[in-house]
């Protein structure tokens, strides 16, 4: 379990996140939603140990600020919004960097094949020999996800659940790959791990999240299941946009929802 209590983050003297309480349970997908600049990414950076914070964060019962990077890395992996590479690595070499800590959780000897298996999961079969820098933005994002998956391949290790932190994992993907990636996240949770994902698509959020944390101006505006949280009032208050939940478009205007995926 990940428990954050009264977490605040300031960057260069400016408060970005104020007093957030947050819980991510193994077996669940926790989605963080909110408008641009509401502090979602900053909060996730505090959770992943990248930014200094005040308050308390416990990772599987241990105080995050007392843990070493190598130790934290055995219990959670982080997918950033975008990753640029400074040297011409091949896709396989990038994915293999996920194994640098050596706690993928597969049997010894299976590590060597893990990059291929991870690439297959993100629908990049046969991309291992390509250069990362030659790929499209969406393909690069999936390569990074494959790397992240390698780091915590087994959702549970030594009896402890492990976590995927995903910062806008589907932001540059087409709808097919959005569904593939969200299914990977859900599957990771079903097998005993935990997922914390920042999402912008409210439909995908409703479809895959077990619990939603809505952030607004650096604070937590609402928490709960999709049914509880996604209301007309909340959306108007937080996103400053008059939308109505569960209403079909007027006339014969077409609409396509991921929820309809077979």
């Amino acid at each position, binding site marked *: 379990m990940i428990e954050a209590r009264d977490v605040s983050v300031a960057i260069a003297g400016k408060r970005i996140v104020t007093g957030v309480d947050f819980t991510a349970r193994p077996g669940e997908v926790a989605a963080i939603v909110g408008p641009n600049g509401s502090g979602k990414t900053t909060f996730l950076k505090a959770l*992943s140990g990248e930014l200094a914070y005040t308050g308390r964060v416990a990772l599987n019962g241990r105080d995050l600020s007392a843990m070493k*990077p190598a130790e*934290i890395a055995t219990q959670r992996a982080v997918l950033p919004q975008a990753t640029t590479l400074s040297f*011409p690595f091949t896709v396989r070499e990038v994915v293999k960097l996920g194994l640098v800590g050596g706690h993928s959780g597969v049997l010894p000897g299976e590590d060597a094949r893990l990059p291929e298996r991870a690439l297959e999961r993100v629908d990049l079969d046969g991309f291992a*020999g*390509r250069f990362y820098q030659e790929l499209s933005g969406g393909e690069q994002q999936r390569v990074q996800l494959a790397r992240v998956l390698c780091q915590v391949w087994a959702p549970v290790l030594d009896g402890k659940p492990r976590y995927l932190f995903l910062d806008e994992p589907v932001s540059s993907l087409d709808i097919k790959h959005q569904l593939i990636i969200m299914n990977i996240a859900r599957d990771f949770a079903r097998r005993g791990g935990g997922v914390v994902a920042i999402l912008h698509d409210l439909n995908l959020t409703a479809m895959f999240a077990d619990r939603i944390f809505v952030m607004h101006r650096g604070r937590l505006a609402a928490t709960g299941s999709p049914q509880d949280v996604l209301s007309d009032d909340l959306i108007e208050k937080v996103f400053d946009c008059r939308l109505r939940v569960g209403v079909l478009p007027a006339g014969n205007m077409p609409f396509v929802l991921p929820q309809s995926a077979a």
Partner: protein
Amino acid sequence: MMVDQSIAGPVKGMTGTSEGDRSGRARIVILLLCLGLVTAVLLSLTSGASDASAVNVIGDWLFGTVPDDAALSARDSLIVYDIRLPRVILGMLVGAALAVSGAVMQGLFRNPLADPGLIGVSAGSSLGAVAVIVLGATVLAPVTAWVGTLALPLAAFCGGLATTLVLYQVATRRGQTSVATMLLAGIALAALAMALTGILIFMADDRQLRDLTFWQLGSLGGATWAKIASVGPIIVLALAAMPFLARGLNALALGEATAGHLGIPVQRLKYTAIIGVSAAVGASVAVSGGIGFVGIVVPHLLRLLIGPDNRYLLPASALLGASLLLLADAVARTIVAPAELPIGIVTAIAGAPFFLWILLRKRGVVDL
């Protein structure tokens, strides 16, 4: 951000099943580089201004075969053992140190243009070294008396370390290094170090001036066993520490934050790298002056061949750097024989156009 797309198309692994895996190719290249280095060493031992026969001397050592003229053999032995051999060893040490330092700095700055010579680290080391040469007998006398023969490499180390630390603070913000800021800050730091060096040179007497001029151009000419004893251990220690940075530097290619997420202790990695590079460059500058471009040419060529994986790039850079510097030294010794060209001129003549070529190929992405 710079992109290297020189090798188009997918990378085939050695076995076909491991596409994108260049480790097999890297091992073969490293093996070939070992053979290349042995060849370069033999070539350097057997060539020179004198007609001394290294073949006879080596044969004498190995098999005890004494040639007809014993007196000639004694002279040959002296030339090979006391002049050529220390020069070869020093050349290997300096070449390896400069090439590996270049590769490590490029990994640290996440940028293939970082080079100790280009961004002022060598200039900082020079300042330290010149300070000891000029002021060693007067102002700095208590210090030099205390540390003895280590004064020169130590001063060069401190100069290099100070420059690297300042440069890193200036050019890197939140784990991202700006190419433009790095190069420009390097120019500024080098200019400052050279100005201070200039003041010292202004204070130098005639004998010191002659030493300084030749030393600044870069030369392996004064190689002695004593010099090897003073800087050899520093370079060997720094080189031995670098392979432990390889995995961390690989992860750093994804950015500082992501390297941290993967479990790399990023701060410790950065400072180990900076201290290692300063020690290796400082020691090299102390014995051989300003030999430029080795640190940028060698890792760049190797990345084209075996990719950027530092586990292979660092040892390969050491081997190729050592070989190239021996070859450059061979050119320096023979091209205007019986006089000798400073080796820094040779590496600059070959390296500067190479650097321009890299810039031309990547002009769009460097984008100052």
